[in-house]
């Protein structure tokens, strides 16, 4: 059991087997190879990706399908193969999360839908990929009209 301190969650202990390794690091944060995925019920649907190598480094992340129900992931077989996603059978063995960049105004808060973080939860491996195509931008509004519309429609049912 090892201990680190998260700025919002506070001190936390973790087991070695819960560590997720980003062999190539996360783009721009390459020196951080070992991360924890923190899910706190009080922060849902947001999650935290916490660097173990540097406890000051935390990324706020969210499942892109919560933000855009029609989010379409296009990952080449080679990219999938790099963290053995192609070997996984069960849905709970993998996850996709996108980085949120918080701004003081919610309207300006953005999500990176272009470069999702892929997780092989079974083998505890992760990788950030940049998707090709023009469908998504690196900076998309998190609280977009389409998300708002989707939420209100869902509420209406």
């Amino acid at each position: 059991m090892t201990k680190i301190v998260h700025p919002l969650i506070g001190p936390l202990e973790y087991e070695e087997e819960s560590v997720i390794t980003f062999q190539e690091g996360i783009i721009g944060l390459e020196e951080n190879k070992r991360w924890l995925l923190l899910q706190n019920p009080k922060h849902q649907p947001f999650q935290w990706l916490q660097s173990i190598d540097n406890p000051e480094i935390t990324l706020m992340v969210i499942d892109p399908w919560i933000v855009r129900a029609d989010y379409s992931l296009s990952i080449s077989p080679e990219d999938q193969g790099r963290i053995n996603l192609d070997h996984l059978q069960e849905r709970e063995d993998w996850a996709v999360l996108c980085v949120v960049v918080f701004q003081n105004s919610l309207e300006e808060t953005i999500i990176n839908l272009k470069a999702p973080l892929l997780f092989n939860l079974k083998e505890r491996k992760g990788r950030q990929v940049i998707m090709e195509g023009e469908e998504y931008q690196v900076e998309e509004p998190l609280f977009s009209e389409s998300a708002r519309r989707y939420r209100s429609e869902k509420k209406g049912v």
Partner: protein
Amino acid sequence: MLILNRKPGQTIHIGQGVILRVLSITATQVEIGIEAPKEVPVLRGELLDSVRKLNIQAVGAKPGEEQLTRMREFFKQK
């Protein structure tokens, strides 16, 4: 840095299997064809830069409890 002059149609070979071909040139733009093995990622430099910049920015931008509550409200079901 190695600097080479190339004309349209000419190529540059890099290592095993990476070939750059100059397709056309205008006053302000060069069209380049790239052949690379599937395991070699090919990315536009500015795209990689913008992802890098955003990840670093994300690390320094954390909401406080109150702001987080407002953000969560938006995604609350029913």
